[in-house]
């Protein structure tokens, strides 16, 4: 479903992605963790070409992401992206946020798109907030609307970049619950997160990055309880002490 082949990326002199080889199977839930600045966000942002790469190739659903002949719009409609800071459109209601892309990119009729939008809102437990503006919602609610916005395009892949890091502790649970139920539905997910509970519960694989390299991958139980490398052990002890 997603394949990285020898991917390298630099920001100026900084080697942010250092020869990444990675395969994510259909329906797999991959958790990416690692210290700040290790390149986790950059890694998943390359998957839908929010970032260019300088070397190697990324294949998503048979399409070469950074090939200029690839239909980028089609590629992006198949991938949902959830940001740490939600990035809802503040001048639109929750429902308008959700239906914008289905109506304008997928050319779905407005009434139909609104029906789908309400279903997705219901799916994230916010059916009654369809007409609320982002400013009227809590952080956890905003992030759930952002997830519904991604789901409304019926993507095969959902990417999450630290979806709970900007939330107050009491709101983390409601967002993780939505993500757990998504994982059980067979959507392919790549999630950058340090939520160990979430990883242990639903991840098929954990990937540990440092300085632009994949240092270690493994089943969540193995990775968190018996890390193979010193750097991973060090990192795990740090997130445990929080």
């Amino acid at each position, binding site marked *: 479903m997603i394949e990285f082949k020898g991917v390298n990326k630099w920001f100026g002199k900084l080697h942010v992605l250092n020869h990444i080889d990675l395969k994510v199977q259909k329906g797999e839930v991959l958790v990416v963790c690692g210290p700040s600045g290790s390149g986790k966000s950059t890694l998943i942002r390359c998957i839908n070409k*929010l970032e260019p790469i300088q070397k190697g190739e990324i294949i998503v659903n048979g399409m070469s992401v950074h090939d200029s002949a690839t239909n980028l719009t089609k590629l*992006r409609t198949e991938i949902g992206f959830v940001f740490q800071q939600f990035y809802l459109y503040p001048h639109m209601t929750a429902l308008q946020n959700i239906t914008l*892309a289905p109506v304008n990119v997928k050319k779905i009729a407005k009434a139909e798109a609104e029906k789908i939008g309400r279903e997705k809102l219901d799916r994230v437990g916010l059916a009654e907030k369809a007409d609320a503006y982002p400013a009227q919602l809590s952080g956890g609610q905003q992030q759930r609307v952002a997830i519904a916005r991604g789901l409304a395009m019926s993507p095969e892949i959902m990417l999450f970049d630290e979806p709970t890091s900007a939330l107050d502790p009491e709101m983390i649970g409601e967002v993780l619950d939505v993500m757990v139920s998504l994982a059980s539905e067979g959507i392919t997910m790549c999630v950058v997160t340090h939520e160990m509970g979430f990883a242990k519960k639903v991840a098929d694989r954990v990937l540990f990055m440092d300085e632009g390299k994949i240092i270690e991958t493994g089943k969540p139980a193995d990775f968190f309880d018996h890390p193979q490398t010193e750097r991973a052990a060090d990192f795990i002890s740090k997130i445990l002490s929080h």
Partner: protein
Amino acid sequence: MLANFNFMVIFEYLPLFLSGLKSTFLISLVTLVLALITGIIACSMRISGIKTLQYPAIAYIEIMRSTPLLIQIYFLYFGLPSLGIVVPEIQTGIIALMLNSGAYIAEILRAGIKSVDQGQIEAGLSSGLNYVQRMRFIILPQALGVTVPPLLGQAIVMVKDTALLSLISVAELTRSGQTMTSERFMPAEAFLTVAFFYMCIYFCLKYLADWSQRKLIFREVY
């Protein structure tokens, strides 16, 4: 001092002032529309990310903002004829004001567009919205809110700048004051009246600016 003023003369010259006011108003209106178009084009070029469009736009904006308007007016007034282009004073004046205001408007528009969070643009990108759709649905609706008040501010500046056109003998409001002064030698009366009419225009525009600000701020809070 006011007691010494000859108000009768003002009434005598009222038709002249009113026709001056009318042409100041019309010049301002035409210039504003043209300057908006100029500003939109210059701003689009400036943010296009295409160097061959970007650099001319930057050069234009910086030249206009770094030199006095009066010099720009004189440059066109004396410069165009020497290039063999002969246009009436009033059109020379409108072109100069349009170019000058257009540069400021381009920067106001650019600030408005830049005020929209880059993350929202990325959210639009990742759901497959194209450039025009991102502009239309995400950027412009939000940018407009922050641009309208400074645009009206620029309009106020521009109206007052039309006074400089009197120096290339365009028959506008300030020119009527000069005409009365030269005929009757009553500069105090003449320019007090002129100032009064500028103030009228200013307060109308200011009212509009305040009103739009209230409307727009209200929209932000929902």
